[in-house]
Structure formats: structure tokens, C-alpha cells
């Protein structure tokens, strides 16, 4: 059993491999500690992804928190943004989501959310860690007749779907008669997105909507992304979307089967979203590792930029403080505060559809004219057999070399001495694409970084 919960903190969250590190006993203790932070009889929302390890740990957590007299609204399997939405919609005091991650394929993590639908700050997580180390000193156990209730709320999907639609012009989207391909990555979004899109008159080709046990190779991966791109082309669809498993972000493929990257999507929203356009003068929040060219583009469009580290919940908190009109982190998360202070893949998708219909144009041509940073690019051919698990291997190597990195679904962004380098598998051939940009005007630093990474990749 883990003695200090601090050892399980990864990326600001409590994470561990089920039964090896993250045991039901630990989960139950966390439940008791977390519940004791609320007042007795308060309600919180709980949810999880499809997998049995998440299910097991959620059940253990549930017993722990019930023992402290907290009532639970149980969503069972749901996306993370849906849990965040539910907390706000029903006025719960907080929530908890148990899921495997894209980044650590074998790990299960637990995320704590406050009453505003925002992930808890690091100081709050530290309170739980500290309390665990003195367990059960600060735990409140209630009388048997005061143990918390657990209630299923099975039709929240419908409320969520209807609410999402209220924030876009669904009549106009319906009129556009769109057809899109959506890969739900075997996640709970499989039971949301096809219904949501169908309801607003968009024809959907839905992929991977069913349950599949967790595998070594997380999804979306290069194979599922290529598959989506191929189906977009073959079916003459207008768009392809690959959801991250928790539903908080999406990878976007245009009508030509080409990926639309983070920077292009960010500039697309800044240029064409009507609400953002109406909010000129209000702050836009980004992570510090966005391209200086993109930052200038935002500023030239009349929005001051504030840069915030990409820690859990941090961007959401800054949205509130700055009353920002938009936020984006280069992990492909986009925050549209008119709907929520968090990133929701389904809402991002709806907003992209709205932009396409308002502009009466396809995504490929809308995103074509945006400025691009001064980048050093390199393509390295590799054997097709290496591609399958390349992303995971790359994460291991990056960690071994001590680089700071961000996981961007099919891409890693390495941040080293003011140089931002993206590494990803090419969508249409067996090659690795490297692209480095320096945030100071020094191409040598970018060149050196490319060389270093090229050597690492060649030695794989």
C-alpha cells in the first residue's frame, strides 16, 4: 500500500495502475477524506469511463465517501465534461471522475471537481494528500442512519445534449446538410455524440462507439486517426473527428483527410467565432508554449493575451478571474466560457460546425490562410511496424531524457529552453514529422533541438 499519496501524483492528479499501486483500499480512503472536506448531507456527482479498473476504484471511492454522510448522484459511465456539466446544472457541491488516461495507458486517475465544474487546484489536492498521510485522523464517520444516499440519474444524457444545442444556431447547422465522421475512441462519448449530431440534422458516420477493454496502445492512435481520415475521403464527408477517451478534446480532420492542428483551430475560433468577435478587448488565455506568431495573431485581432501554465483547472480559474472570452491550451483543449469554463469536445465540435455553416465554407479552406511560425521541419522515415506503439515509446524516451512535454493526442510537444518541438506520426506515410520553433529569434536553437531528437528517434 502506498504510504504517501504524493507518490501517486502525476500531472497534478492522483494516478496509478489499478491493483498494483492504486488499490481499492486507497480509493476508499480517498473517498472518506474527500467526503470529510464537504459538509454532511451535501451532494456530489460521480462518474467514470467504461473500464472495469475505473469501475472498481469508483465503487471503493463511493463506499468511502458515503461513510461521511455525502449523497451521491451517480452518472455511471460518462464523459468528463458531462460530469462537469452535471455538477453545475444540478447545483452539486462537487464531483469525482475515475478514468484511464490517454497519456498513461495502464493507469487510472481520479479527478476532483469543485461546484463550478472546475478541477481542484493543487493546494486542494495537497489537502487530500496531507490528510491521507494522517489517515483517518480528519475523517468524519457518520451514524449508520446518516450514511449518504446513492441515486442514479440515467437521463442526464438527454439534458446534456439539449443544453449543448442551445448554445449554437442549430437551425442553420441543420440547413447546411452536413455529413461527418466521428471516432468515439471506445469512450463514453459514443453514447452522446451520434445522438447530439443526429438531433441537429447532421449525418454521422460513427466509429468505435462500443466498449473495448483497455489496451497497451491508447486511442486515438495513428491507426484510428488514419482510419477516420480515410473514411472522410471515401464518404465525401465534410469533417472527421477523433475524440479523446474522456471527451474533453478532439482531433480534427478536414474534408481532404488532413489534420487541422491546434494553432489553426485556435486562429479559426479567433477569426470566425461570432461571440469571440463580439468580445474584442477581452482577454484570451493560452498556455505559454504557443507559437509567438499565433500570440501576435491574437493580439493583432484586438485581444490581450494572458499565458497560464496548463495545470489541472488552472485555465478555468483564470477564465473567471480575467473574465476571458476564450481560452486554449496546446493540448487541444478549447474553452468557450459562454457555455462553460472547461473544455468539452462535443461543444468544440458544435462550434466548428457553426463556424463552417456561418462562413458557408469548408474547414480546409477556412484554415488555409492563417500565418505560420518560422519553423525548422524534418521528416524521418521509419518502418511501418514501429508506428503502432510509437507514441507510447516516444513518451518513455522523452521522460528518460528529462524533457518537459505535452501530450496532444497524436503528437508530443517538447518544451526545452524556449524551443517548442512537435513530434508526430505522418498521417499518410510511414514517417515521423518533427517541427521546431523558437520563441526567441534564434533558428539555431530550433535546429539543435531537431538534431537531438532525430538522434533519439533513430536509436529507437
Amino acid at each position, binding site marked *: 500500500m502506498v504510504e504517501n499519496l504524493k507518490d501517486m501524483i502525476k500531472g497534478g492528479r492522483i494516478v496509478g495502475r489499478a491493483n498494483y499501486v492504486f488499490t481499492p483500499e486507497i480509493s476508499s480512503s480517498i473517498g472518506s477524506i474527500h467526503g470529510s472536506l464537504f459538509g454532511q448531507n451535501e*451532494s456530489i456527482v460521480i462518474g467514470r469511463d467504461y473500464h472495469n479498473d475505473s469501475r472498481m476504484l469508483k465503487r471503493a471511492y463511493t463506499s468511502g465517501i458515503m461513510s461521511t454522510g455525502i*449523497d451521491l448522484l451517480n452518472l455511471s459511465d460518462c464523459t468528463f465534461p458531462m460530469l462537469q456539466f452535471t455538477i*453545475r446544472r*444540478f*447545483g452539486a457541491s462537487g464531483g469525482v471522475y475515475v478514468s484511464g488516461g490517454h497519456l498513461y495507458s495502464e493507469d487510472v486517475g481520479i479527478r476532483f471537481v469543485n*461546484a463550478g*465544474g472546475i478541477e481542484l487546484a493543487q493546494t486542494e489536492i495537497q489537502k487530500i494528500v496531507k490528510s491521507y498521510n494522517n489517515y483517518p485522523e480528519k475523517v468524519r464517520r457518520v451514524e449508520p442512519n446518516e450514511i449518504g444516499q446513492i441515486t442514479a440519474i440515467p437521463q442526464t444524457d438527454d439534458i446534456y445534449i439539449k443544453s449543448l444545442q442551445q448554445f449554437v444556431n442549430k437551425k442553420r447547422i441543420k440547413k447546411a446538410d452536413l455529413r461527418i465522421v466521428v471516432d468515439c475512441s471506445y469512450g463514453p462519448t459514443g453514447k452522446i455524440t451520434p445522438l447530439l449530431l443526429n438531433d441537429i440534422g447532421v449525418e454521422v458516420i460513427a466509429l468505435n462507439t462500443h466498449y473495448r477493454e483497455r489496451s497497451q496502445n491508447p486511442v486515438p492512435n495513428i491507426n484510428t486517426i488514419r482510419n477516420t481520415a480515410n473514411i472522410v475521403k471515401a464518404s465525401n464527408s465534410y469533417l472527421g473527428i477523433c475524440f479523446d477517451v474522456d471527451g474533453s478534446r478532439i482531433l480534427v480532420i478536414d474534408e481532404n483527410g488532413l489534420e487541422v492542428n491546434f494553432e489553426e483551430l485556435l486562429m479559426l475560433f479567433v477569426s470566425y467565432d461570432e461571440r469571440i468577435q463580439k468580445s474584442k478587448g477581452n482577454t484570451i488565455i493560452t498556455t505559454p508554449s504557443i507559437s509567438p506568431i499565433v500570440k501576435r495573431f491574437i493580439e493583432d485581432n484586438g485581444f490581450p493575451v494572458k499565458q497560464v501554465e496548463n495545470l489541472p483547472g488552472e485555465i478555468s480559474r483564470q477564465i*473567471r478571474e480575467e473574465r476571458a472570452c476564450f481560452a486554449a491550451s496546446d493540448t487541444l483543449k478549447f474553452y468557450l*466560457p459562454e457555455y*462553460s469554463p472547461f473544455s468539452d469536445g462535443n461543444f468544440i465540435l458544435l462550434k466548428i460546425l457553426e463556424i463552417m455553416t456561418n462562413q458557408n465554407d469548408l474547414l480546409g479552406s477556412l484554415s488555409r490562410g492563417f500565418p505560420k511560425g518560422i519553423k525548422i521541419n524534418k521528416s524521418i522515415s521509419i518502418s511501418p511496424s514501429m508506428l503502432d506503439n510509437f507514441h507510447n515509446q516516444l513518451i518513455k524516451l522523452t521522460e528518460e531524457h528529462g524533457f518537459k512535454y505535452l501530450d496532444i493526442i497524436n503528437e508530443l510537444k517538447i518544451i526545452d529552453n524556449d524551443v517548442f518541438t512537435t513530434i508526430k506520426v505522418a498521417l499518410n506515410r510511414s514517417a515521423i514529422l518533427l517541427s521546431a520553433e523558437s520563441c526567441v529569434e534564434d533558428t539555431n536553437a530550433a535546429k539543435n533541438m531537431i538534431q537531438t531528437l532525430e538522434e533519439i528517434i533513430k536509436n529507437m
Partner: protein
Amino acid sequence: MREWSAIVLAGGKGKRLMPLTALIPKPLVKVTNVPMVDYAIAHLIFADIKHITLALAYMGEDLKDYIKKTWTTDKLGDVELEFEIQDSKGTADAYRLLNEHIDSEKVVVSMADIVTNLPMKDFMDFHSEKEGLATISMKTVESHISQYGVVLLDKNRKIYLFLEKPAPMELYLSSMAQRTDLFLHTNIINTGIYCFNKKIGDILHETGLMDFGSEVFPYLLENQYDLYGFVKNYYWLDCGNNQTYMWANWDLLRHYAWPITPNGKEYDGIYVIGIINSGQNITIEKPTCFGEFVQLANRVKIKELTSIGNNVTIGEDTVIEKSVIWDEVKIGAGCIITESIICNNCEIGDNVVLERAIIAPNCKISDNYQIREKTLELGQQV
């Protein structure tokens, strides 16, 4: 009889804003060097309302003196401004006690402790068009219902239901049973500005209800009166606590509440009321604002989102960022002040560090002292 008149509710104690309200009533708390009550009066005059009555209570005499001194005939023109110090037991009670002063068909009820650029004229026209008994100004907020409550509206913005702080399960079930032409809004809030038809006065006398939000509106709905919600996306902030008070200062400096701007003449994002008496190599970032008789010693840095009041002296090498400094404040040399509020008549020594600190009026802080995320109470000396 006039078509419109207005009542400004300015009697609040501002308990949640303590210690800022230790010596002054909440409507006199300044946001970017303008007392909040002035924003409320100017807002109504801008909407062409010619008769305004202020309902005063806590420290009513002080507030009355201030308003008399500030809102002189030359500023008011043909606008009639009246005061009534009263001992009301709620917002509706305050209205009831002023009912005899009302000489119009329709009445706007506003508050003196909020900052908003609500399009007042549009709001009044909406009320006239709908011909309901009452219209409530509402706003969509990025927030959650545990703070504000829930409202059920139809497509014409007619209000069917208010839920103050509903239990989560109650809301879930309400959502399930909802008619398709009604919308349960959990992110729309009542911003505390209302339009009424004169008849409301009679209802208040008959019922004896005390508070609009929790008593009068539910009563009107129960008794089938027509109640409408004016929902628009405008700037509104209740300066109810120290955090939102600070945000209001920042927002006005950032022009989020345009056309409401800080007091003073603007020089490219820097607002100045009087003259800044400055030493050498000072840095002033925008947006910031300054009152009268501000003295900045050599190398002082005033960074973005800072508001400085009247008669403030700041010592050499001091750096102030995202803070609100009130009047008659003396700050020593080498201080670093970030996201803090310093109230009237405070003395801050040299090399003091204030980070997210609230310093009540009449405090003294000795040299080299550091205060982080803490509040000093009235007259405290450390």
C-alpha cells in the same frame, strides 16, 4: 404623471465587504476612484429618468451629505434627486416606505452596490412592451446555481418559476418533467435591477412582503401576475466581497464595462484626475488610474490594473501591481504590493511586501513586514 421614475436602494451595510466598509457605507466604496452610488445615479440619468429617490439606511446621514455635495444642481439639470433615510427590513420594504414619493406610471428599482452597463433604456422599453407587472434584469453568467438559483422562462421571456437553492435531485427531476417550450436556466441570474408598474406599491401594502427576490417575485408568480426576464449579455458585477470588488476595479480599467470608465482624463489607458507629482525613472503601465495629489518617488513602478486614490505618496523603488489603493495612504520605499487593497489613512513602512492582502482603514505596517493572503482589521498596527 411622469412615465418613469427611479428608486436606488442604498441602505446596505456591506458586511461581506468588511473591513472596507468599517467606516463608510457600501455605496461610498470607490471603484476606480468613483463611489458606487455615483455610478448608479449616473446610470439612471443617462437613461433619461428625471426623478430619482435614494433609499438610505446604514450611515444614511454620511451618504446623504456626500450626495448633496456631489450631485449639485449644475450636474443634475432638470433631474430631481431626493433622499429618504429609513429603517427598512428588506428591498421590498424600502420600496413600500417610499411609495408616496412615486409620481410615475412605471418605476425602475436599482442598487447602489453594483457596477453594470445594463442597457437601461432597452430594459425600460422591454418592460413597456411586455406590459407585465414586473420585469427583472437578468444575465447569463459563467457560474453555478449553488450561488444564484434557477429560473424557468418561456420563449417570450415570461417567468414561470424561481428556485432559490434547489437540491440537486430536485433539479434533476424538474429537468426530466420540463415542457419542451419552457427552458430551465441554471446560469441566468437576477442582477437586482427591476422595472415595476405602479400597482406593485398596492400589492406590497396588502401583503407586507419584505424582500423582492425571496418573497415578492414568488408571490407574484403564485398569484398569476405577469413577470418577465430581460436577459442580455451585459457587464454586471456585484461588489459583494473583497475578491469581486477587486475584479470590478480591474474590469473598469480594462473597459469591460464600457461606456463606464474610471474617473479622470484618459491618456492612452491611464486615467488621471489631478496632477501626478513624480520623481525620476518612474514606470506607469496601462491600464491604471490615479486620483488627485499623487506623489511617486524615483523609480516607482505602477503596473497594470492598479487604481490609486487621492493624496497618496509612494516611496522610491516601490512596485504596485493589480492593487487598489484608497485615499490618504502613505507607502514607504522598496515595497512590493500585489493584488492587495489598502483602505484610507494607512501608513505602510519601507520594504513591506503585501500579496493578496486587505488592509483596513487607519492601519500602520512597520518596515520589512510581509503580509500574504491576510486581512488587517480597522486601525491595526503591525
